[in-house]
């Protein structure tokens, strides 16, 4: 197995352990901070889509952060 794959699997296992070991139950009335746009993943869908379009057009990587858009835009 290649080194990047080993690192990724190790990260995945560590994160899974972290998450499953810390499953707090936050009640709805305790979610004030969590509802702030800064706390919501991909809250601004338009910006996320834009970033997911121009960054892969200039870099060799893609994926991991939200859905990917179509089109080339790389001329």
């Amino acid at each position, binding site marked *: 197995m*290649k080194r*990047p*794959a080993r*690192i*990724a699997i190790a*990260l*995945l296992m560590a*994160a*899974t352990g*972290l*998450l499953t070991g*810390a*499953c*707090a*139950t*936050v*009640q*709805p009335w*305790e*979610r*004030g*901070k*969590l509802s*702030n*746009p*800064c*706390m*919501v*993943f991909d809250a*601004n*869908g*338009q*910006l996320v*889509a*834009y970033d997911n379009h*121009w960054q892969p*057009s*200039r*870099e*060799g*990587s*893609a*994926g*991991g*952060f939200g*859905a*990917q*858009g*179509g*089109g*080339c*835009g*790389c*001329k």
Partner: protein
Amino acid sequence: MRVQVEASRTGKVLVGALAAAAATLIAASNWADNILTFGLHGFQDSRTVTVLSPVVDLDKDFTDRSGLKARFGVDAVTAASDSCARCHPDGANNQRTYGDFSYRRKYGDYRLELGGEISRENFYAADTVTASLSRDLNNGNTTIAGGYSFSSNRPQLHPTQTVEQQYAQDVYVTLTQTLSKNTIVQMTYDFSRISGYQSNPFLRTSVNDILVVGNAPDLRNRQAIALRLRQALPADTYLEADYRRYWDTWSVSSNTMSVALSHYFRPSFMLGGSYRWYSQTGAFFYQPSYTGDPQYYTADYRLAPFSSGLYGVRISYAPADGLLFFPKHTALDLRYERYIASTNFEAAIFSGGLRVPF
């Protein structure tokens, strides 16, 4: 040209369909959580490419269990890169027109979303269908989600009339976990498989001192794992931290780390700053130039080893009484970023958005 004619016709159809859909939906609005977002993005880089991207989003709830999203946008390239300038010294403009649509519906704790995107530009056409399913667990403190997308892409090998075919499939799974009243984390694994023509017909590399269009492998499997943290800090301050590890079968691997800090000076005014660091290795067949009889060769700068930094500042302004003549809860978002790569490539990116509830 066929593709240009097709792009123009498709753009008109998209505009008409979205305008009709928007009029129908607004007329039938129940004044729930419906939002129209008008955006304008600007991109200018050191390769003299300038792109202006107006876009409008519609997010409409039909009921508390169903809704839709629609997006229509244009990428107007108002200056050509040096690859275009080689044949068009007076400049060559390009335009991408695209439209997204998705429908969502909840079934108990499950949420299903189906959608698609049509994208047309000179010498490139892409059609994508998407599906995702998520489920809330643990009183909404845990969310498991997965999704699949399929794209059919058709690059035209300009200046010839030859049209190649490329297929892209993507599947991902995401786990989102609330850790406390102030902390939420997310983990994503993403796998995509791209088959078919994957060279860039606009870039030419030197093989034995002769400039030729590149030749890339016709299969690329890409994987990424992302870990993300959102942390509320004291005094209305918020921390966003993301990490992504990426690798693929072309031997490109990368690390991406980003951090953002936002502070609310007033409930209606937020100021934030961000930094993103990116570093990648080159593809196994990437070289500045080639000699002999190489099987694969490319001039695609995206396949070269490099690193980059992205610095950003953003504000959000949402006065309680509404902004100008817009209704309450209207928000103005502005962001400016500078992208600086180790290859001397630089770019300035501006984004503005106005979110209007209706």
